[in-house]
């Protein structure tokens, strides 16, 4: 430990206040943990529905990431019905929307690092938000209409 670290260098949140940037910083971490929760639910569900006999390791990963019925179509699963229940489509929608919000924010952060002009950063936000709604509509359609 060097001398610099004897005093805490972080200001407590109560003194710092919660700006939009701070909120999104927390949001990124919270959604990361939430996605691990969704993956765990998907994994346990897949094992309970017989994935050990009908799916390969990578197919289980794909299902656990987004549990939509389309992700079991190309596997050896005989009866898709339990995999296509409203419960699993809801889990898939939760994972998808969490990942989409996390990802769109991530894209804005990355582009901001390489685009410094105010207008460029505004366009970054307009295009990213437009993509958010387009992909959200398409994704929910894929999850619920398959």
């Amino acid at each position, binding site marked *: *430990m060097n001398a610099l670290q004897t005093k805490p260098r972080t200001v407590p949140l109560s003194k710092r206040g919660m700006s939009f*940037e701070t909120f999104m910083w927390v949001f990124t*971490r919270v959604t*990361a*943990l939430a*996605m*691990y929760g969704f*993956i765990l639910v998907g994994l346990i569900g897949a094992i309970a529905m017989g994935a050990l006999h009908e799916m*390969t*390791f*990578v*197919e289980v*990963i794909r299902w656990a*990431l987004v549990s939509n019925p*389309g992700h079991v179509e*190309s596997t050896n699963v005989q009866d898709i019905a339990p995999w296509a229940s409203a419960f699993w489509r809801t889990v898939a929608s939760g994972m998808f929307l969490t*990942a989409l919000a996390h*990802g*769109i924010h*991530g*894209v804005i*952060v*990355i582009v*901001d*690092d*390489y685009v*410094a002009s*105010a207008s460029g*950063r505004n366009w970054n936000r307009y295009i990213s938000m437009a*993509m958010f709604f*387009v*992909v959200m509509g*398409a*994704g929910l*359609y*894929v999850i619920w*209409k*398959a």
Partner: protein
Amino acid sequence: MGLKRNVPLSAALGYKGQGPFLAFILHRVGGAGMAIFITMHVLSTFAEMRGLAIGDALNKVYTSPPFQIFILFCVLFHAINGLRITLLDIFHAKLMPHYRKIIAVEWVVFILVFGFAAVSVVATAIGRM
């Protein structure tokens, strides 16, 4: 609005960082890879369901083994590195002094999970030929 860093891409790529920088840049590559390819995957599946041939053609690329290995790299590295970042932020007082060792542990976990997944992709492809 974020910080005005204003670093050109060429200078950013020329930075000779070590382990933590490699994790940072691979996290970006993985995140950007997912943003581009999962967006395309969602849109192409939507197109396929609406009866457009372009969606079918794109999803054939997505189920090909080389592409699956690439996207698994993006997803698994981003997920495992993201968990490492989140845990360091939650328990920063305890874990931050050991962050380089923790990155080494992260690589062991990543290589095991990604290696197993990549082998599974290849074995499945061979099994279905």
